[in-house]
C-alpha cells in the first residue's frame, strides 16, 4: 500500500506495467512537442512578445512622452487640437515610435494608428505596476515603472480599442482605461 513501505525491498527492480510505459512515452513526446512548438513559433508565428527593454527614470519617461505627444498632436479641421474627454489624441507618423504612459489611473495619451502598419510601441509606468489589456483584442502585457518596454505592433483591424488596466493598482484600478484608434 502507498501508506506502508514497499513490500519488496528492491522495488526498483519490479517490472513496469505496460500501460504505464506506453503513457510515459506518449506524455514525454507530447511534452517535447509543446516545448519545441514554443521555440518554433518564434520563427513561424507573428505573435511573440518582444523582449526589448530599457531602464528609464519615470520622470524622464514622462517628459519624453509629453514632448512626443506635443509634436504629433492631432489637429482637427477647425485647427484645434483633438481631444477625447480631455485626453489629447496623438497621430504618430506611419511606422514611427509610439509612447504610452501608464499612471494612476489612466493610459495617456489616446493614440491613432493606421491599420496594417508596424509601430514601435513604448510602454512604461511612472508610478505603480499596471496591466496593459487591449480589448476586445485581448492582448495582455505587464507594465512596470522604471522599465521601458518596446513592442513592434501591427494592428490588423480598424476601430476603437480600449485599454483596461488589469494589474491591481489601488483604489482607482477599475477606473483606469485608455484608448487606441485604428484607421484605414
Amino acid at each position, binding site marked *: 500500500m502507498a501508506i506502508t513501505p514497499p513490500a519488496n*525491498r528492491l522495488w526498483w527492480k519490479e517490472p513496469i506495467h505496460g500501460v504505464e510505459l506506453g503513457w510515459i512515452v506518449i506524455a514525454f513526446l507530447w511534452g517535447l512537442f509543446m516545448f519545441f512548438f514554443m521555440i518554433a513559433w518564434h520563427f513561424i508565428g507573428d505573435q511573440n512578445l518582444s523582449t526589448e527593454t530599457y*531602464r528609464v527614470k519615470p520622470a524622464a519617461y514622462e517628459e519624453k512622452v509629453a514632448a512626443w505627444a506635443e509634436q504629433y498632436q492631432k489637429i482637427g479641421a477647425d485647427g484645434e487640437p483633438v481631444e477625447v474627454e480631455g485626453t489629447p489624441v496623438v497621430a504618430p507618423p506611419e511606422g514611427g515610435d509610439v509612447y504610452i504612459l501608464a499612471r494612476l489611473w489612466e493610459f495617456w495619451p489616446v493614440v491613432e494608428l493606421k491599420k496594417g502598419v508596424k509601430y514601435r510601441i513604448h510602454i512604461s509606468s511612472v508610478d505603480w505596476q499596471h496591466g496593459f489589456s487591449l480589448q476586445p483584442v485581448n492582448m495582455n502585457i505587464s507594465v512596470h515603472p522604471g522599465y521601458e518596454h518596446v513592442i513592434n505592433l501591427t494592428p490588423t483591424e480598424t476601430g476603437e480599442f480600449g485599454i483596461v488596466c488589469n494589474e491591481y493598482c489601488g483604489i482607482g484600478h477599475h477606473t483606469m482605461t485608455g484608448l487606441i484608434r485604428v484607421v484605414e
Partner: protein
Amino acid sequence: MAETPQKAPAGEAREKVPMMQQVLDNPFLLLFLGVTVPAVLYLIWGIMEVASVPVGQ
C-alpha cells in the same frame, strides 16, 4: 546514501540496492537537488536577466 544497504531488514538476500533507488531513498540528496536546480535555472538566471537590462537614452 551509504547507510541504505545496511538498513535493509535482516535475513534478506544482501543484494545491492540499485543506484537510482539509493538516490530516491536519500531525502537530503533530493533536498539538495530540489533547491539547487530552481535556484540556478530560475532565480539566479532570472536575476541576471533583470540585472542585464540596458539603460535607455
